[in-house]
């Protein structure tokens, strides 16, 4: 009884300053800040701080083990006139756009095939394996498959199907190296497109197709006017995500060609790595990595809008 009588008095007295905090910081600010603190520390220490440090280093002349010397935008200006850098930029764009384009088509084919009449989730599971397998393992598999003298691809084309008179050095000839690394990137990445589109397709109400059929739409028209518009957001998100990942893909090119032959497959991540740990020019290497930041930032901002929207749904 006594406690009940005391309650209103205490409530009126004690929480007043805290109520102000509550209003300003939000109802759950105690637990909220406590719970995000480790994450915030981690993100600041492992991403934000290194990133700012990187931006600073790119404005310096920095070699391993020697303190940096501030040189302003010298690295960026020098790179702009560097033929190797320009070639790596061009190659990166070719690699990225070709890969993402083919993945889009193959992913759509995969999704359509899996929704049409085949209902076995076993097939879906099998088709996803390249996406979960270690990239390094896949790259090594293809290094072996593409091998000029003992690889199975040449064996099939020359000895079994007799399409080619002699084997091709898929990764060692300038004419085929880029197509080969693009192929491996597509092989690894298209299942992600497929599985994402598949989920999108399942969410399209069947009535839409029925209505289109009643109106006399054929299969191509139904795809163009029902399927594509319904998948619009998923297509945008998946393509932007894949653009970021493909543009920054290091392992496949590094293992298959190391950027060769003669720079034919040199892409920016490998170029950065070699400048940093081969030539030991850290400042310039970071400038290489940051050169694409404005473009990357734009992609990230647009993408994060779309992703938050679909998350909130």
């Amino acid at each position, binding site marked *: 009884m006594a406690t009940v009588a005391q309650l209103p008095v205490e409530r009126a007295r004690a929480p007043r300053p805290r109520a102000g905090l509550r209003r300003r*910081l*939000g*109802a759950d*600010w105690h*637990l909220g800040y406590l*719970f*995000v603190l*480790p*994450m915030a520390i*981690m*993100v600041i220490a*492992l*991403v934000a701080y*290194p*990133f700012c*440090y*990187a931006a600073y*280093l790119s404005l310096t002349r920095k070699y391993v083990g020697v303190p940096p010397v501030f040189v302003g935008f010298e690295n960026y200006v020098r790179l702009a006139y560097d033929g190797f850098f320009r070639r790596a930029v061009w190659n990166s764009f070719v690699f990225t756009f070709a890969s993402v384009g083919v993945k889009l088509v193959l992913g759509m084919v*995969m999704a*359509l*095939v*899996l929704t*049409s009449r085949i209902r076995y*989730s076993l097939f879906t599971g*099998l*088709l*996803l*394996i390249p996406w979960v397998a270690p*990239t*390094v*393992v896949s790259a*090594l598999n*293809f290094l*072996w*498959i593409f091998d000029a003298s*003992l690889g199975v691809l040449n064996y099939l084309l020359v000895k079994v199907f007799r399409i080619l008179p002699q084997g091709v050095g898929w990764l060692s000839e300038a004419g085929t190296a880029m197509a080969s690394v693009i192929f491996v990137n597509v092989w690894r990445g298209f299942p*992600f497109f497929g*599985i*994402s589109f*598949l*989920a*999108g397709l399942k969410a399209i109400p069947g009535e839409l197709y029925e209505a289109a059929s009643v109106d006399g739409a054929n299969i191509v028209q139904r795809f163009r006017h029902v399927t594509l518009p319904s998948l619009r957001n*998923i297509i945008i*998100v*998946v393509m932007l*995500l894949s653009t*970021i*990942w493909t543009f920054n893909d290091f*392992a496949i090119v590094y293992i298959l060609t190391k950027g060769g032959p003669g720079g034919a497959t040199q892409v920016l991540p490998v170029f*950065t790595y070699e400048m940093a740990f081969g030539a030991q020019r*850290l400042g310039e290497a*970071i400038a290489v990595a*940051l050169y694409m930041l404005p473009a*990357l930032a734009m992609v990230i901002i647009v*993408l*994060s809008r779309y*992703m*938050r929207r*679909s*998350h909130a749904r």
Partner: protein
Amino acid sequence: MKREAIERLQTTVAYVVLGFLLLLVLFPFYWMTITSFKTEDQMRSLVSMFWPAPFVVENYTQLLTKTDFAIWYRNSAAVAISSTLVATAIGTIGAYALARLRFLGRAFLSSATLITYLVPPSILFIPLYAQIRTMGLADSLAGLIAAYPSFTVPFVTWLLMGYFGSIPEELEEAAMIDGATRFGAFRRIILPLAAPGVLAAGLFAFTQAWNEFLYALVFISDVKQRTLPVGLSTFITGDVYGWGYLMAGAVLTTLPVIVVYTYLQRYMVEGLTAGSVKG
């Protein structure tokens, strides 16, 4: 009649295309596996191409006895498991706070998490390497354990924000009306309900850490401290000799991921897609 014919044609086309995709996807794994059971002679003289005869296991025994593979395996397991545990714990509470709790800065932090998740390692690896070196963790597994949460934490957080968001808020409210604190409601009601999602997110993080290549390549130079992807990649030395045990190593490196994946498959196939998942 005509309609039936069209449908049958569609089904046939679908099966043919599916067969082609399966061949494309599975052939490299088939090739990896049979190569690992071939002798060097078989490879060199292009005989018994599509099924090894004789079928030998010496590549595996060589791999485990004559190379550092077993050490790398242990290293990879240690790094992947510890960094995953850290990331899952941090990501789970962070995601709960961002999905459910009301506090100033929550929207900003949610965006920051997403953006962090999207920043690629190829931009971060040099400064992160510098950072790890100043912390005295270069060339050690601890350096990798410290660095991997840079991609696993944002990933787990982002994934679980969606998961927590899908649990009805009324459950917590009911518990709190019954006298539970916020924390109590989280621990007793929400966490058990979210357990499958937390497990899935953790396993995804595990496969990412297990597969990671760039940081491991850059941070580690000591042969005995390598992880599997980097160790395997050092087997390419240009000579034919290595392919047998290289592929044996590839098989053993892929196995844990495939095991984990058979559990995760339904999460990937249902729902956790474009917006929320990176494999």
